[in-house]
């Protein structure tokens, strides 16, 4: 569960990586760039989750097809856009160009979804608060408190429901009855939670909260290898961005098809840098895996 080399890096590295990759994936709307992004996200999700990711990834295929076929309907113009008409639907012309456009759109959407799934795996709540604690100490504390309270309230809610069932309330009746019961449960939970807030606050104050500048517990240290990784990522992202700024990642389908080639040194460098950047977590994961296997066989 997300304890590979990339996940155990400093949160700043992971956060920076995902922000850069997601932002670039959204902005570089070019078939090759998008395909690479999809492949990179899928590979890392497979590396993180193993076989459990397969049904999820397969489920993305019909989603892709549905969004692609529905997207021309969102196009508001009634005149045909692009030259090759496939069919008419609800009085609109569906052309190949519009379908390609839709395919790009849904590929971008799916790439974003897959990268965010990887993000949720790697950037857990504690890493998020570690990252923002020096900048926003009170808010990070608030976040930590809420993260602790939500599961606690879930457990308490179960107790309340059970207790009410014991005295014959809840469980039976129609939807309105169930809703009223739920509100009564919520009411009981709220009363208990608010009493808890006073106890927590008094306890915090008597332990000296607010008496001095707040320090934060650091589980992650920014090591040299983190720095190197961050520098490598920044360099790769910069090369990609430079190629994109020079127009190598541009593609238009409507009104006319235009797909930028990557046949100059800068274009090729941008594409290669983008590919390496996307595969970086997977490579690190596999590298660690291989090292482990080799060391194990020697023992």
């Amino acid at each position: 569960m997300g304890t590979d080399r990339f996940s155990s890096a400093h949160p700043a590295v992971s956060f920076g990586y995902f922000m850069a990759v997601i932002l670039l994936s959204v902005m570089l709307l070019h078939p090759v760039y998008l395909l690479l992004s999809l492949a990179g996200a899928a590979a890392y999700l497979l590396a993180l989750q193993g076989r459990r990711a397969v049904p999820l990834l397969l489920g993305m295929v019909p989603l892709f097809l549905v969004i692609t076929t529905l997207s021309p309907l969102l196009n508001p113009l009634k005149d045909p856009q692009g030259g090759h008409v496939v069919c008419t639907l609800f009085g609109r012309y569906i052309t190949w160009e519009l379908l390609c456009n839709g395919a790009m759109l849904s590929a971008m959407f799916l790439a974003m979804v897959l990268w965010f799934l990887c993000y949720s795996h790697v950037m857990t709540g504690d890493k998020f608060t570690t990252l923002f604690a020096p900048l926003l100490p009170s808010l990070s504390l608030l976040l930590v408190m809420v993260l602790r309270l939500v599961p606690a309230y879930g457990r308490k809610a179960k107790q309340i429901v059970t207790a009410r069932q014991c005295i014959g309330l809840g469980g039976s009746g129609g939807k309105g009855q169930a809703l009223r019961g739920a509100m009564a449960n919520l009411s009981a939970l709220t009363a208990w939670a608010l009493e808890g807030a006073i106890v927590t606050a008094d306890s915090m104050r008597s332990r000296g909260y607010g008496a001095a500048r707040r320090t934060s517990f650091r589980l992650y240290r920014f090591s040299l290898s983190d720095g190197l990784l961050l520098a490598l990522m920044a360099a790769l992202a910069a090369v990609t961005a430079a190629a994109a700024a020079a127009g190598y990642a541009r593609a238009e389908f409507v009104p006319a098809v235009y797909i930028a080639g990557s046949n100059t040194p800068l274009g090729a460098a941008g594409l290669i840098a983008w590919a390496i950047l996307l595969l970086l977590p997977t490579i690190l994961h596999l590298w660690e895996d291989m090292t482990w296997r080799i060391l194990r066989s020697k023992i």
Partner: protein
Amino acid sequence: MKKTASLRWLRWVIVLVILPAVVYLCSISDRKYYLSALLVIAMTMAVFFLSFERRMPQARELALLAVMCALAVAARVIVPFPSFKPTMAVIILAGMAFGAERGFLCGAVTALVSNLFFSQGPWTPWQMMGYGMGGLLAGLACHAGILCRRPRTVGQLATLVVFGFVLIVVVVGPILDTSTYLTVSMKSAGTTAAGPIYLTGLLTANLPHAAATAVTLALFGRSLLDMLDRIQTKSGLLQD
């Protein structure tokens, strides 16, 4: 209090100078609406978050805010219908009881945490902004006397219920739909795609959300406001 003075100054600079500048620059240069919208959201939230930090909140304020945020997230789990979302109702009531600024914080933190439990996505900043705005407007409406802090008559309760419904349909829902719209329109044509997207959002998501909020406010609003009142008089929480 030199710190608060400088912060107030910074706030006006952001609101009056930087925000319009960002919107203007982004709209003329490359029509990067998505990026400019994200920047506007980030700066708006920075204003509220920084003012919270600079205020050096006391333990009581932190504890109470944490409880309200956690309740707003957990409320979804308690109600036995999966599509019924009482979260916004709790945020509205928190905004009424604790004031506009804390209402915004409560909404934004609730959205962030609820996404940590479900899943983060491109919608996270929009949801933080939308929920925050809901809490903020509820606090402002209460301050302006539109909403009653202690609803006793049927009329006062009805105002609260209608306010919650309208707030979701007019403010919170459209902010979330804008996230969808800007994602979709990045590659496809023009502003006229907005119609179908906002309409679908209204019918499939916002009207059920608004109905759930209204029902929760009607059934639970008075008792939660009373409980918050009681806890404030009992322990002097948030008396400033």
